[in-house]
């Protein structure tokens, strides 16, 4: 019996490694789940991109759910995501807030001018502090925040048609069901 222990231990190891391969092919290994899910979105008050004298805070957004899309003009992936977001946001029927992260406002304005503006409102986080509060580490990132200001979902990396359909839309539908009665 004792002689079988190494064999069994080895099979446990093989199972773990097989799981590793499986997990690795179905998950992005570098994604770190946000601890903010289910908690209130961190407070922020940031100048608007096109009207820097006006600030927008988290409190201003309470009452209706919104998507907070973190992007930057320096971020090539954001360029891939931008048309998809532009095309899909109308179908989603939800407010879209753009957070220009660690970026020069002038660059961001040029970028928006070039690729179009699907955002309801754009705010700038030049020194990246609001981004840190949101736990952003890899633009683009997108947060779904409900009417009470609670973070319901976070997407790390770009949205594709598929994960808008399979992940984001069910979350939005769930929020609407909750709000209905």
């Amino acid at each position, binding site marked *: 019996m004792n002689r079988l222990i190494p064999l069994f231990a080895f099979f446990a190891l093989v199972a773990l490694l097989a799981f590793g391969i499986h997990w690795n092919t179905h998950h*992005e290994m*570098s994604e*770190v*789940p*946000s*601890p*903010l899910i289910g908690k209130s979105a961190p407070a922020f008050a940031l100048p608007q991109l096109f009207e820097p004298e006006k600030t927008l805070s988290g409190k201003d957004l309470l009452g209706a759910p919104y998507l907070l899309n973190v992007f930057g003009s*320096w*971020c*090539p*992936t954001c360029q*891939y995501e931008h048309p998809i977001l532009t095309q899909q946001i109308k179908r989603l029927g939800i407010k879209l807030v753009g957070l220009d992260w*660690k970026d020069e406002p002038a660059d961001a304005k040029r970028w928006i001018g070039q690729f179009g503006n699907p955002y309801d409102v754009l705010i700038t986080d030049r*020194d*990246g*502090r609001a981004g*840190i*509060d*949101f*736990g952003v*580490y*890899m*633009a*683009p990132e997108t947060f779904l925040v409900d009417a009470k200001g609670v973070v319901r979902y976070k997407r*790390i*990396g*770009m949205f594709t048609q598929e994960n808008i359909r399979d992940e984001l839309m069910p979350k939005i539908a769930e929020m609407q069901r909750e709000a209905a009665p």
Partner: protein
Amino acid sequence: MRSALTRPASISSGLVRSVLRSAPMRCLVFALLALAALAAHAIDPLPFKDRAEEVRFQQLTRQLRCLVCQNQDLADSDAPLAGDLRRQVFEMMHAGKSDAEIKDYLVARYNDFVLYDPPLKPGTWLLWFTPLALVLIGAFVLARIVRARARQALAESQKTTQPNSGDDDW
């Protein structure tokens, strides 16, 4: 991150495919495949008030993992976000925050993942206690073996009076 993301892409169709699959992870993919970011580490002079603070800062940032280039600690990573986080740590130190408070601040935003020293909690019991358990079990088995062999040795030494010839020492 900026430099990493705009770094000229090179070679390998497999590489290109994986980048397209997860474009935002470019920095990582490159870091993993090409070790590119490794030899460009952060050299970031900060205005420490004394040597003790500098040492404390170095020790703390070595225990924190960078999220952008995930194989580097916060002290070494030259990702812009790592620079921001270093500055954040530095400012919190100046504000009199303890190491534990600074860690809590980061964990609240970025998860336990940022801690290279995994905290003791139910999810890490296996990690922290298994080695100890192995040593104890091993010591128990070892003690039984030694006892059995020692008994045998005693029995034999009663038969033969010659214990252990000195020449056979090695």
